[in-house]
């Protein structure tokens, strides 16, 4: 008797799509695609208290920004008042004036503007100073942000953000002026980005809160 060739019955796979969909939905739910964003900072190295040396920084090179426990802001010699938007505008304007030693901080009242050191920042020398030899850099300026024990974190971040914004505004202006590009690490070449960072070096000091 000839054996009848039997066809193996195929598995019904019509539900495997549903199965896969279920898994898919599970992964969709547990996935967090959003990458974390934040204001990146570098803390100063820890120095044991008996080894602390007072760094000599000339007074004209420091811009003190202070926030007290009532969230009132003192920047240089002036109070910053008004609504949050108004405050932000003032903070940014003042920081820009300080970094570039213009306006209120022109001449002796602002930080020392020094010539570019070709050894320390060759990119800046090559890309910007070659085009505009009058460029000066406020190398040793410091914006010192001081908070109180009771200052609200939201206010502190608002200040941090505006100070970063001041640098970014300046770098953006310079990027447009010298490279006709936006200040964006993806658009600029590495050397160009380095040159802009050297032109406006970010120097925000994270001073300790006063108790």
């Amino acid at each position, binding site marked *: 008797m000839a054996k009848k060739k039997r066809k193996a019955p195929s598995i019904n796979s019509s539900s495997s*799509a549903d199965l896969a969909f279920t898994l898919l939905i599970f992964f969709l739910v547990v996935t967090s695609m959003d990458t974390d964003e934040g204001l990146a900072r570098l803390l100063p190295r820890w120095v044991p208290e008996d080894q602390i040396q007072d760094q000599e920084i000339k007074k004209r090179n420091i811009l003190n920004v202070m926030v007290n426990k009532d969230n009132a802001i003192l920047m240089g010699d002036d109070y910053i008042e008004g609504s949050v938007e108004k405050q932000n505008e003032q903070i940014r304007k003042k920081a820009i004036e300080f970094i570039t030693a213009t306006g209120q901080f022109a001449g002796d009242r602002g930080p020392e503007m020094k010539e570019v050191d070709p050894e320390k920042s060759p990119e800046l020398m090559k890309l910007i100073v070659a085009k505009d030899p009058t460029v000066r850099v406020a190398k040793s300026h410091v914006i010192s942000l001081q908070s109180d024990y009771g200052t609200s974190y939201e206010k502190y971040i608002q200040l941090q953000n505006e100070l970063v914004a001041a640098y970014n505004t300046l770098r953006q202006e310079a990027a447009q002026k010298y490279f006709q590009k936006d200040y964006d690490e993806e658009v600029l070449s590495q050397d160009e980005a380095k040159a802009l960072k050297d032109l406006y070096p970010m120097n925000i000091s994270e001073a300790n809160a006063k108790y």
Partner: protein
Amino acid sequence: MPELNTSSLPDLVFSILFFFMCVTHMREDTPIVKVNTPRADQVTKLENKSLVTTVLIGKPRDTRRGSEDLIQFNDDFLDMKNVQATMEAARESMKEADRPKMQISMKIDRNCKMGIVTELKQELRKAQCLKISYAAKK
């Protein structure tokens, strides 16, 4: 009317599934403190997830723990005096090449006071964790 051939649908769905499995990293520790990060428009993205250690500060969700701001690290509350040791241990557990690149992301509630934040920053300095990031929303 001819029926639409759906035999390749599972393959299709599976490929999407694999995509999601690859890009997914499971939502990490469940927050036990309430954190609503402040707004800032100058934020930058954190480079590499595997280099980032997250610390949270906020009021505990469990009201029995009181209403003082507390630090959370890896599913548990972290005492200020243990910060240094914990952070050093966290760095030890990283790949040796990655250790100097370690970054601390501080997710801090907007209503926190600066006191605890400053103290934490001091402890991080003692632990040689100098790269930090204040988490904020756009």
